[in-house]
């Protein structure tokens, strides 16, 4: 019996995305898997530090608590884009 494998491979090659072709639709399983892979399931260590995002409110808190401030300043928010 002739093998259908070469024919199947040809069909896959013809259907494979080339430059500019949209990828195939994402299934519910695809979305769920990507969520599992990219989204943390618990707070990451840096998140446990308790970052404030308002400078003057942090300053007021530092005065009340008699602590110095530590500022992490970046181009692009350090808790966000970069």
């Amino acid at each position, binding site marked *: 019996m002739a093998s259908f494998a070469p024919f199947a491979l040809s069909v896959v090659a013809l259907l494979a*995305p080339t*430059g*500019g*072709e*949209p*990828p*195939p*639709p*994402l*299934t*519910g399983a*695809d*979305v769920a898997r*990507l*969520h599992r*892979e*990219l*989204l943390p399931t618990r707070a*990451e*260590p*840096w*998140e*446990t*530090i*308790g*970052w*404030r*995002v*308002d*400078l*003057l409110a*942090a*300053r*007021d*808190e*530092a*005065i009340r*608590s*008699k*602590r*110095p*401030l*530590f*500022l*992490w*300043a*970046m*181009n*692009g*928010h*350090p*808790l*966000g*884009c*970069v």
Partner: protein
Amino acid sequence: MLDRASSFADKDVIELLQRRFVPVALDVWYEERRQDAAGEFFRKVVFQREGLTPGRTTQGFYAFAPDGALLEGWNHRGVDRLKERLKAALDEWKPGAAAALTGAVDSRFDRTLPAGARIVEVRARITDAKWPEPEDEFRRIMQRATSLDHLWLLAEEIESLRAGRFPPALARRIARFHCIDNTRGEPPLWEPEEVVRCEVTLAPGTGRAKDATVDGVIALRSADGTRRYDARIGGSVEFTGDALARFDLAIRGTFAGGGEYTCHPPPGDFTLAIVFRLVAPAADGSLPAASRVPPQGARWLDDYLGRVAGR
């Protein structure tokens, strides 16, 4: 993400910052520009750093007193340096008086979440690429990094979703401001004319009555021809009564190219995946600190919210 994954994952640093400092994180783009008490205080602190003159980036690390006196200031990452500088700051620190700072906020740089809007967590990662062997630990971290940003969903867009329609303005915001490779630094965003295709639909789901399925195609091309993204978007949206309960989307596609601040992209084509998940408030109604940070694209707020005609 380098510092999040290295210096600020160190347990000694975490304990020092939790117990001995009031830690604050800021985007210098706002603080360098705003003309109000917060901006003036920021500039007062940072320009005490040795070697920092106007025109140079103010990004870095600063330990300082509430009266604005700088204790330690530096701009080189590394956990050992961070620990050393934090301890030095504590040795120099003496509590003292500081006057209240008041005055109107510079509204040009106010980024309050619009009424009725919801915040969506956005994470991106390069999931398949022909990476070269990393030269050092920082390069290794970058190759595996997952970025973090947030999307704002406006009230009228939520209403549109509830009515069964994926609003075009939301699709364009996702394409222009969130289909970005921000895994290595601040990425270039997409101009309106660089959106070649952006078609996103919402169809009734086959599961529970109130969920709907998202499907769409996004194609982006930079004007200079150096950057492109061909992607598919999918996922589901669910309402409980009138309230948006889930906004679980994913985008996956082929990306090529980098940007001025996202150097060293993988060679050739690579797969960039992006996921979206609604941020849920805690039981007391509070939001995680990171989700209170405005989206990167919100620097250009009117454009980000789709309020500039023709963009």
